[in-house]
């Protein structure tokens, strides 16, 4: 009996997995067909549906293209960024992202160093750090027991230590950037029923629609959620059920409360 139940559970699991796989593939191909027939809004809905089930770089790339075509640059930028997270080396996505940012009029500060210290390079830093640590430790221990003069150790130990410090810094910074990525939100377009001729999103002084704006941000801009003293995201829920986030730009030049539906998490699907 137990055997029968376990087999049934396994079969159900496999079946559900294949159903999910089929559903996401089906949604994707339906979206491609809808796009080919010129029905862009349906295609967007289908891609969005597929993205809730699973993620793929091509899915988000196609979705970003569609948002761009429908002039929703904020969501286009969001999806290009997501596509690049899944396929960091894709030059087409990178070029499209640059073009979308340029069209949206958003500056995206990126230093040359940031490509070596981003979330995808953490593994490189960790492997380098552990390898250097063990190789150094084993070599020094071996030489010590081989009767090396203690004075001879000063220079190799110093180099080893400096190298470890550098690699630790790389790993630490990359990890920090990864955690920063989890707090990053992209400003997306406001609801169509809300009138805002400039399409800019206000960052308010207080978490309420009646509060005056500190500053405005454009769709496509990146903002980071503030952390409270207990390391939780700083948010507020109004009486009407509207959720607000306290956000700031990377250089802290822009700061304020923003409605949760005006921003989308980069690494989280709503």
């Amino acid at each position, binding site marked *: 009996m137990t055997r029968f139940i376990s087999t049934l559970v396994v079969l159900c699991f496999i079946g559900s997995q294949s159903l999910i*796989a089929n559903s*996401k*593939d089906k949604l*994707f191909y339906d979206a*491609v067909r809808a*796009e*080919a027939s*010129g*029905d*862009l*809004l*349906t295609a967007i809905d289908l891609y969005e549906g*597929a993205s809730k089930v*699973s*993620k*793929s*770089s*091509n*899915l988000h*790339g*196609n979705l970003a*293209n569609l948002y*761009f*075509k*429908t*002039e929703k640059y904020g969501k286009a930028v969001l999806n290009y960024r*997501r596509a690049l*997270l*899944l*396929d960091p080396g894709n030059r*087409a996505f990178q070029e*499209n992202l640059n073009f979308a940012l340029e069209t949206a009029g958003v500056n995206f500060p990126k230093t040359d160093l940031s490509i070596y210290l981003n*979330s*995808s390079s*953490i*593994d490189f830093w*960790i*492997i380098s750090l*552990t390898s250097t640590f*063990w190789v150094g*430790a*084993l070599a020094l*221990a*071996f030489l*010590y*027991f081989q*009767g090396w003069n203690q004075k001879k150790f000063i220079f190799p130990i110093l180099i080893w230590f400096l190298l470890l410090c550098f690699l630790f810094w790389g790993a630490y910074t990359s*990890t920090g950037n*990864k955690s920063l*990525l*989890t707090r990053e939100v992209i400003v997306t377009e406001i609801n169509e029923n809300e009138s805002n001729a400039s399409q800019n999103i206000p960052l308010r002084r207080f978490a309420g629609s009646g509060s005056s704006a500190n500053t405005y941000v454009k769709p496509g801009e990146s903002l980071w959620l503030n952390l409270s003293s207990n390391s939780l995201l700083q948010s507020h829920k109004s009486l009407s059920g509207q959720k607000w986030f306290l956000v700031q730009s990377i250089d802290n030049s822009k700061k304020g409360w923003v409605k949760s539906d005006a921003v989308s998490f*980069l*690494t*989280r699907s709503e």
Partner: protein
Amino acid sequence: MNLLHRYFCFKTLTYYIFALSMLTASSGQQPQVQIEAYFEPSAVTLSNSSAYKIIIQGSQNSPKGSIPNVPGLEISNNPKTFRKVSLINGVTSIKLELSFSTRPTQKGIFTIPAWPIMIDGQPQTVPAATLRVLAPTQLDIENQQKQNQQQQDLKQAAFIEFSMPREYVYEGETIVSNVGLFLWDRMPFTRIENAPVKQSEAFSATEFGQPAEKRNVIKYNKNYTSYSWKIGLTSTTSGNHSLSYHSSVRVRTNNKRSTPFNSPFFNDPFFGFGREESIKVSSENKLIEVRPLPKSGRPSQFNGAVGAFKIRSKIDRDHVSLGDPVRLTFSISGKGNFTSMPAPSFEKNKDFKIGPPAFSFQGDMQTKFEGTQNFEYVITPLTPGLLKVPTLYFSYFDPDLEKYQSISSVEHPLRVDPGEKWVDQGNTRSVGEAVPSSKRFTTQDLFQTESEPGVWQNTFISSSLLQSIAFWITQIIPLAAFCLLLFIGLKKRYRGVQSHKQQEITFLKDLKKYLSYNDSKKFFRCYRSIIQFKVGLLQSHPNPYALSSDELIELLEKANKEKDLISKVRLLLIKFDDYEFAGVDQKTLNLKEEFRQALKIIKKLK
């Protein structure tokens, strides 16, 4: 003169002692210093050298001063010195002779004027000396000719030649040049260190690849092996510029040092008894005229192409939908400066979006002088209809005809279908209603849609390696290796410490035994062995029992031991030597007290 000064300092102490004793033995008066200067021989022919001698009598101390420069004479600054102290009829005579090699460079009478010198802190004067330089003799001329011939032979042993098709080139023109390195077969060359290197900034050259080797090339009645490189040489700036090439080859030469095998047979470099030397090989300097390109008649499209060319253009499709890219290949064939030829540019055209071209060259890759340069442009039509692909104009300067030429590509017709228009479902308009111009898409906005989903993933950010169990399991391997190494090392070290302890205990037992026998000789011998053993351990000496008393003290000082302890050990060591070798009376000795002291010292010697 600095060298001179240093030279004087290099004399043995005994010599000075001897000289001083001789001085003391003399009357005790301060000797009078006398200086002579002359050339030996006083007359030489132009190709020979003479020695400028300064003889100082009455002092052997280092003189200070500098010889004045005389035009026409080259005086060595590395003198030979000779010192002599003699006793003649009870009178001490001290003499110092300095000899400077002097080589005349011209005929005539040359006088080194009197010049000041400091001897024993007293100013003295070196008298003037004259050298007559005569015209070279027949023998000198023959020797000089022989020397010149040798140099000429050496030049002919290895040299570089390069060819130029014309005496002049035009600015920016590329020519094919053959650079040949000729190595005489009778010279034992081992290898070419590097391909010839161009010595001129006014030309750029293509890379020197693998050379073509040719044997038995006769030149100057000698047999050579030649290595030739074909290169493309492009002039960069106008004017008269010299051009030459240098290379280095390695050759086996006779060993100059005298060896046990110093015989003609053993010194033959062919038998491997010589050594290798690097020789610099150079070409002659050629003056090349680089003419500027004429300014008159220069077409506006001219962008630096020099040579003789033909052009051809083609498109990969002549019927496309709006937004579909078309590849236009523009080929330039012929002979010319393909390395410095920029892509021809289109005139502004509102019907097409034109991307930057891709370059490819087919032909002589070594010189890049002759072949076909292809420029592939991706052009995207922006409007539907029957369009004409824009024409490309290409201008070049023909150095043979000495005038500019302009050619243009043919006009390719291209049919562009409008394709299907997208209508926003949310903003459905009635048929015939105009779409606002701001909402109309241009083909520039089109992106490639992927028809396959690719790899599905569950999260946007892959989990860190630190969260992987496999990573932490892998860390066990180096950790285990480290622990194993630590264990083996410590065990080995502990075993070593144990053996040292056992040795020390044995020594102390022996010491006690000799104390009980009252055998002072053996007691001290054992005591010394313990000290040697302990000091040896302190500095990890491989053979501590071979250490002498001085060496033991030196090691203790190196180990930064207390001065009190070092002095105690020093006294002990002296005592050991006294009792063992000097036969000091042993009756007065209190061995028990010595043993107590020994224990204290051994304890401190940790």
